[in-house]
């Protein structure tokens, strides 16, 4: 287990290093020169020079860049002279994290449940219905489902608030819009995994021992089938996090995604790259955590020396 954790940690660190190195060289490939823009005040220009050490040779620039990142400094805005990436993150990330956690929980519970229902009713109406929901969920992007929900439940039926983030009723539509795709993916995976497990010998043994169907399904089938589903939690987190760019835009949630898109639209490259680095590192860390959880749950890894 220790060896497994160390191995995953090493891979994560290398990945993080590759990511920040790519960002570093991409910054140097940026189209145009930020200093030519009239919107860049001398103050910002001076900040840029100091921050990136642009007058020094490239390998020193690289070291400066890495040092800044190690200090947890992600750079700052080209457009607004007193705005740093860290401040934006501090201010906006709680909203995004709130939305993201809700979406992960909802997608996992609903997706796994849907997959179990489908597998237990294989080739019957419930299975077809669940898999139809799943394939629609995979095919309809969040920027379609979000406005559709708004149009039906807020504008027409007046049941839920249209936008913003002020209480539970505000969270329902964004959470659903954000999680639908991942929900569908997990439902398909869970179904396939359940159908795989049902033919295993240990299910036969459980039946032969005379366990109740509930115990067989819950203790033996679901528990074993859920393992492959956990492995996609990492990619699902990534999908959900990038999904917030769109969902926060649609529902006017003051989260990180909204600032990100705003940064892109303002051509605020420095802000965008800083936030991208933050997202990338965050997701690499999330992947690492998922790997560790998987290691803890899967006895084949947990017990191995």
């Amino acid at each position, binding site marked *: 287990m220790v060896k497994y954790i160390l191995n995953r940690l090493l*891979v*994560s660190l*290398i*990945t993080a290093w*590759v*990511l920040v190195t*790519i*960002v570093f060289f*991409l910054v140097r*490939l*940026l*189209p145009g020169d930020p200093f030519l823009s009239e919107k860049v005040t001398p103050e910002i220009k001076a900040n840029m020079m100091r921050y990136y050490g642009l007058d020094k040779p490239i390998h020193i620039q690289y070291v400066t860049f890495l040092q800044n990142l190690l200090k947890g400094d992600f750079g700052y805005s080209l457009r607004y002279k007193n705005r740093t990436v860290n401040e934006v993150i501090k201010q906006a990330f709680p909203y995004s994290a709130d939305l993201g956690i809700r979406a992960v929980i909802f997608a996992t519970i609903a997706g796994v449940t849907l997959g179990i229902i489908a597998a237990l009713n294989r080739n019957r109406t419930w299975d077809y219905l669940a898999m139809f929901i799943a*394939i*629609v969920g*995979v*095919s*309809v*992007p969040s*920027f*379609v489902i979000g*406005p*559709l929900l*708004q*149009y039906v439940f807020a*504008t027409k039926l007046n049941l839920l608030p*249209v936008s913003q983030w002020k209480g539970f009723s505000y969270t329902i539509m964004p959470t659903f819009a954000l999680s639908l795709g991942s929900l569908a993916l997990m439902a398909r995976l869970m179904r396939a995994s359940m159908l795989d497990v049902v033919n295993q010998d240990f299910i036969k043994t459980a039946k032969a021992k005379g366990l109740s169907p509930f115990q067989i399904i819950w203790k033996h089938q679901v528990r074993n089938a859920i393992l492959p589903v956990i492995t996609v939690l990492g990619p699902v987190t*990534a*999908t959900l*996090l*990038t999904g917030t*760019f*769109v969902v926060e*835009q*649609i529902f006017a949630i003051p989260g990180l995604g909204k600032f*990100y*898109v705003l940064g*892109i*639209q303002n051509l605020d*490259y420095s802000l*965008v*790259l800083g936030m*991208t680095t933050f*997202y*990338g590192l965050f*997701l*690499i860390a999330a*992947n690492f955590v998922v790997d560790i959880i998987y290691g803890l749950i899967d006895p084949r890894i947990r017990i191995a020396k």
Partner: protein
Amino acid sequence: MQTSNNAITREMFEHVGKNISQMEAIARPSITYWQDAWRRLKQNKVAMLGLVIIILYTVLAIVGPYMTPYDYRTTNTEEIDQPPSAKHWFGTDTLGRDLWARTWMGARVSLSIGFLAAFLNAVIGVIIGGISGYFGGKVDMVIMRAIDILYAIPYMIIVILMMVVLGQGIMPLVIAMIAVGWLNMARLVRGQILQLKEQEFVLAAKVLGASHARIIFKHLIPNALGVILVNLTMSVPSAIFTEAFLSFIGLGVVPPQSSWGQLAYYGIQSFRVRPYQLFIPAFFISTTMLSLNLLGDGLRDALDPRLRS
């Protein structure tokens, strides 16, 4: 027991005897793997519906813009935000541009980006995966470790980074998508090649003195083509989604050029008043992705040798 009038008697049978030449005759015309796959696919109604929709949209993308007298770029201040009517079939946008023309010009962009990116990803993936799987050993290890690391960086993050640097437009979109889009295909092809390369026909090719390139591209890849094709079909909708997503956050194609994602992006600004401006492109994005997913599912069932009876 009613035996008397319809009992089976010896007289009803006739001895045919052995006829060597007829025994060896082939009863039905033999069909190839691909003909068989096509026959199975044709029986899958849902997949065929998907295929028909894709063909329909492709045809409309080609002829659609010419079906209306309006140009997709021409603005008209007299006719802004018109709802769909006999004159403007899909209505007009906030600049008075005809949305039918824009939708199908956008379809050209969205569909060609989707297919082109998916195809190029497949080509790169097949080459790298093929080399990695075939040579094995150190080459394989280096390539697979590199893929593992690139794979761990979220796809969308890399694509956005590339777009920020490359600027907007169709070619930057395609380049950004193929920068890391081939990883999946490379892994898949490598797995297939690892299984295939131990088989006898590869040994036979080696004995006959075939070069490595010939073995990879003439013997191994064609045998993995079914799996590659299914994966290719499945990656088209995700490429279309990526384009729409990027256009939606302001990193896609530049107006006056249009794409479905960009139409949706502009549609959302005013959809509570004029829902058609969002829901028309949204409908086409969703149904295209749905059709391609259904077609991919059908292809997988049709091409998967394990399901063959």
